[in-house]
């Protein structure tokens, strides 16, 4: 009974926690205090009371304020709304909810510990501890139970633990544990405290099922379930007022709908892809697919893989299905950190990495090309939008989309899945760190518009310091972890001679550095401070009274920052080589090592440095470039285009309104008028006929009598005629 055999415990523990909280502590909580999802007093929300549903009726899509026309719109209300239960803040969490959170955290800790054990067992190549030799090479299949078997078609719930799974297990359980811990502080006193932990645990379970699945069936189950938990958590504050027009802050109810349906659109392609593969090979199992797909028709297989990638596009918010992710920031910030930055959105990358043998080995090159170009383009596309956003979480959301694009590009250019996966790995930590940090800021000042911040570094040094680390990492500055994972993508693109992707990624690296430091300076720094980075009271533009967040929130920040730094430093010791070796089942593969101190690396880093310097110049030293660009007649349209996110939301909204609802109305009207018209028409015809014939019912006895005997008489005569009696 080695740890690997107990891997089912990893998802089982959070599941148990979820059930305990749902049926246990939360029930007690309800019993103790009757209204769990208590509304803030009607007076707060009465104002918009009738208007929320009213305008929702007009469109299925979001009305979260993307229709801002004035980029300097005042967003306090929106922030207050999205800042969430902060009205209730300061109030300490009562006993039962606190118990829920403790249960959740401890369950996650156990899963994380178990994952570490499994990692250890995998590294135990000679089998001198666990007596399982070379698990790293083979991996292990764990058959849980059978759904059903139909003829030769096998629908069974199987887990597969191999190195790829182990990496994901560590990322998921690790980050999830920290976020659970962090939420104790962030969600303190929120009326939905227990509900939050239920849904967080549900997400963890689903994500673990996703990464553990040995076949498409299980993976798809997890895939959809993470979508569910994302839906629930984005809509966690479903009772808030819509933000005022002009605010960039998304509005939970439409955002959750958008998130689910948009990903569903991707899943449509995903499912078709699965169906093609299943029909051709008769199996869902990934290992069997690797071999059986080789018999498939190349073109069909390529198509199938592209369709499968559609699922990844939806889940990982790649262009053109990226629109849901920025809105998903309507959820509480820990959720954004865990689901919409570190783990769930990486599921698409994981999917491609999981199927990489087929993508790279069996299917036609077009498949990977689609993946790569989509990724690279999305990276640039999202980065350009991120340049102009003022909502701190919005910027981070677009940077997430951009980084996911990097991962896909990395998967596509390299001939192993290591490059992309390594960026996923490092990104999980520093992006979670960024989000948690921004959450700490929002928690402190109750607003998330960067124009209401500034100079916060002195108020909250821990937050600022850790975020600075993450910012450097995402900008690809050595020695932080981002450098080791991002630079290889760029360089590999160059080495493989894929200049389009190279150019896109390189330019994106510059943009990334710029907007990330823009974010940092606008938040923490300000003019007149050291490089504009480390601001103080005089740079603060808001009206709240910022204070450093409690330990329970800063501790995860520190942990993540340490992780970022350590992974980075370990890079010098060839950590990424080790990672590659591990991910390739203990086989050494050529992982483009930076620093292989060649020009390419310096180009990559240089782009980052350039971006940083530009950002410092503009925001730290008041080089009024941004204002110029935003106001000059030439560039203003471009600025507006970026600020309004290329008007894609409006486009989709229009499509849904006109095409989908139009057709739907057509159906409904056809039913109501054509089909029912025929039905009712025929009924009316019968009724009319009856109206004519019923005239014969005079109700006068003698008419009937006459009819009777007249009839008898006629029959009599007829009989005579027939029998020829008359003729005789």
């Amino acid at each position, binding site marked *: 009974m080695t740890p690997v055999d107990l891997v089912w415990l990893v998802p089982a523990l959070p599941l148990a926690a979820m059930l305990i909280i749902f049926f246990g502590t939360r029930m007690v909580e309800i019993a103790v205090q009757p*209204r*769990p*999802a208590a*509304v803030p007093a*009607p007076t707060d*929300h*009465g104002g*918009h*009371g*009738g208007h*929320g*549903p*009213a305008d*929702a*009726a007009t469109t*299925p899509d979001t009305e979260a304020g993307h229709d801002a026309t004035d980029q300097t719109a005042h967003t306090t209300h929106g922030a207050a709304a999205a800042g969430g239960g902060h009205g209730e803040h300061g109030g300490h969490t009562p006993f039962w909810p606190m118990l829920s959170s403790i249960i959740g955290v401890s369950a996650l800790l156990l899963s994380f510990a178990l994952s570490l054990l499994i990692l250890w067992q995998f590294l135990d190549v000679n089998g001198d501890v666990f007596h399982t030799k070379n698990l790293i090479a083979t991996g292990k299949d764990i058959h849980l*139970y059978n*759904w*059903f078997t*139909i*003829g*030769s*078609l096998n629908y069974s719930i199987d887990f597969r633990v191999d190195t790829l799974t182990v990496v994901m297990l560590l990322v998921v359980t690790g980050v999830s544990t920290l976020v659970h811990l962090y939420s104790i502080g962030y969600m303190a006193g929120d009326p939905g405290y227990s509900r939050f932990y239920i849904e967080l645990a549900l997400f963890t379970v689903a994500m673990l099922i996703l990464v553990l699945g040995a076949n498409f069936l299980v993976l*798809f*189950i997890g895939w*959809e*379930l993470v979508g*569910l938990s994302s*839906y629930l958590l984005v*809509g966690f504050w*479903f*009772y808030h007022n*819509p933000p005022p027009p002009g605010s960039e802050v998304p509005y*939970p*109810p*439409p955002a*959750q*709908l958008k998130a*689910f*349906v948009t990903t*569903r*659109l991707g*899943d*449509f392609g995903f*499912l*078709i892809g699965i*169906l*093609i593969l*299943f*029909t051709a090979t008769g199996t869902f199992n990934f290992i069997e697919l690797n071999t059986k797909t080789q018999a498939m028709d190349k073109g069909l297989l390529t198509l199938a893989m592209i369709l499968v990638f559609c699922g990844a596009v939806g889940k990982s918010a790649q262009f053109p299905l990226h629109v849901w992710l920025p809105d998903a920031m309507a959820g509480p910030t820990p959720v954004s950190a865990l689901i919409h930055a570190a783990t769930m959105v990486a599921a698409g990358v994981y999917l491609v990495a999981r199927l990489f043998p087929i993508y790279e080995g069996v299917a036609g090159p077009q498949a990977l090309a689609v993946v790569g170009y989509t990724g690279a383009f999305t990276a640039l596309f999202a980065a350009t939008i991120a340049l102009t956003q003022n909502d701190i979480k919005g910027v981070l959301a677009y940077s997430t989309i951009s980084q996911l694009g990097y991962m896909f590009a990395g998967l596509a250019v390299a001939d192993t899945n290591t490059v992309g996966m390594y960026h996923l790995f490092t990104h999980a930590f520093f992006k979670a760190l960024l989000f948690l940090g921004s959450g700490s800021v929002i928690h402190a000042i109750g607003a998330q518009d960067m124009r209401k911040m500034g100079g916060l570094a002195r108020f909250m040094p821990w937050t600022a310091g850790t975020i600075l680390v993450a910012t450097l990492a995402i900008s690809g500055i050595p020695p932080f972890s981002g450098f080791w994972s991002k630079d290889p993508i760029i360089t590999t693109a160059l080495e493989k001679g894929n200049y389009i992707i190279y150019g896109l990624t390189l330019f994106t690296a510059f943009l990334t550095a710029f907007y990330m430091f823009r974010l940092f300076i606008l938040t923490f720094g300000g003019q007149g401070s050291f490089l504009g980075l480390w601001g103080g009271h005089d740079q603060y533009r808001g009206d709240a009274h910022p204070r450093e967040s409690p330990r329970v929130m800063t501790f995860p920040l520190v942990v993540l920052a340490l992780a970022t730094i350590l992974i980075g430093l370990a890079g010098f010791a060839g950590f990424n080589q080790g990672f590659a070796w591990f991910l390739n089942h203990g086989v050494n593969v050529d992982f483009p090592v930076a620093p292989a101190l060649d020009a390419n690396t310096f180009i990559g880093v240089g782009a980052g440095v350039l971006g940083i310097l530009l950002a410092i110049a503009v925001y730290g030293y008041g080089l009024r470039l941004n204002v110029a660009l935003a106001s000059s007649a030439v560039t203003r349209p471009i600025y507006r285009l970026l600020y309004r996110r290329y008007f894609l939301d409006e486009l989709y909204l229009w499509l849904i309104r006109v095409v*989908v*609802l139009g057709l*739907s*109305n*057509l*159906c*409904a009207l056809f*039913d109501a008028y054509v089909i*029912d018209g025929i*039905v009712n028409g025929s009924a009316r015809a019968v009724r009319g006929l009856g109206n004519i014939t019923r005239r014969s019912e005079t109700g006068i006895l003698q008419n009937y009598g006459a009819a009777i005997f007249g009839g008898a008489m006629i029959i009599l005569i007829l009989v005579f005629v027939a029998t020829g009696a008359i003729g005789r």
Partner: protein
Amino acid sequence: MQWLLPVIVFAPAIAGVALLLFPQRPAKLIAAGATLAVFLLSLWLYFGLLNGSATTFGDVLHPQWAVDEPWINIALGTFHFRVDYALGADGLSMPMIVLNALLTFLAVVGSWHIDRRIKFYLALILILETGVMGVFAAFDLFLFILFWEVELIPMFLLIGIWGGARREYAAWKFLIYTLVGSSFTLAGIFLIYVQTGGQSATYQHYASVASQLTGSLPLFGGSVSLPLVLFLLLFAGFAVKIPMWPVHTWLPDAHTEAPTAVSVLLAGVLLKMGAYGLIRICLGFVPQGVQEIAPLLGIVAAINVLWGAGASMVQHDMKKMIAYASVSHMGYVLLGVAGAAASVGGASLLDFRQAALTGATLQMFTHGAITGMLFFCVGVLYDKAHTREIDIFGGIATRMPREITLYSIACFASLGLPALAGFVAEYLVFTGTYALLPAQTVFAVFGVVLTAGYLLWMLRRSFFGPLNLKWRGLTDATLREAFPLAALAVVILFVGIYPQPLVDLITPAMQQTLHTVVQALAVH
């Protein structure tokens, strides 16, 4: 054990008549007790089947607990008219019987609060249960059509007396639609009875001769394929019940007007009668007829799915929306059957055929449970707010957490979320039919996206957002109201996570049916 099926079939009607003699309160208790007893009995039957060895699961040739007595047996010269009182259960009918028993019990509990002529109401519901049970348990075509018509009367009265504002219109529409359809079915039954030798009308007889049923009929000088004619005649009645586009428009009206419990039964089991007839009689007895038209049937199925989804996207009445949703979901059943019968690939794709057919049967069960739950949810809401207008509400989730929890479970089950029942059936249908009718399947799969769209949009408009102060006084579902919801939620979760017991029971019956189908393919 012979007495079990007759008891299950007739006990409800007897109880229904009996409770009229009692005062109101005991009458209610009698109804609840009787339906509960029937449900437990049916469960006993079910697990009796399940725990028997694999051979005793039963299929159309070897029904379990079969009863077969000659009932009408007249020889008019050469013409021999014979009707058997034949009851039986197999993998196809057993889940439906259990579902019917469960839903009727829950319906009785769910209509506890009705104050207008409750005794008559309950009696009708119990008689309805007998009718439906008979349809599923009958093993003789004439007995089948008899029960088929018996079920109409209580339904008509239930809608017409306890319905909403336009109840007369809805009731008549329901009645006439169904009668027109079933008249064709009756004609088809006589035709097939004569064409198969006219000695016996038991299912075993038809199933055994099904694959030889070929040839053509003279018609207007020309001649048409006999199986096709038989299929079209028989299917006419089933198509109305399923309901298949374009004869589906009775459903939204009937659902909108019917009281909650009746909507539950209507969507939960009555629609399944159509699907049951399609699989048992059309596919089982005239497979070639289905084969000749399978691609077209698949197209209609896809239309069903998309059309229903589109129509429900723009409804303003929750019940009407869910009604169109059932139209959409029954499309998957059609698709599964069409796939199973499609003549491509011959016997080589047998496994996929079986997946498709099993999926269709599973979908019958899961859709019954899920849609029943949805209607119960709407009913609870309606009893408190006295409206079902989606846009009138807003943010009421904060007022009724219990309701919204169960309601969203039902919605997610309906949009095919894994770990809930709906996903299992739909996934099975898709994986099966794609091999046989790819194009149709692709279109049908897109319905999954639309379903998510309209259901969640409905939730978003009614339950989320700031509380519409008009509903400040709204109270949460009481435990009595929540009981049917919770019960169905348990069923849905169980089937969604561990479907094996259900599938194991269905599979052998489907194997038998497919055996004849493939034989017919060979003959073709």
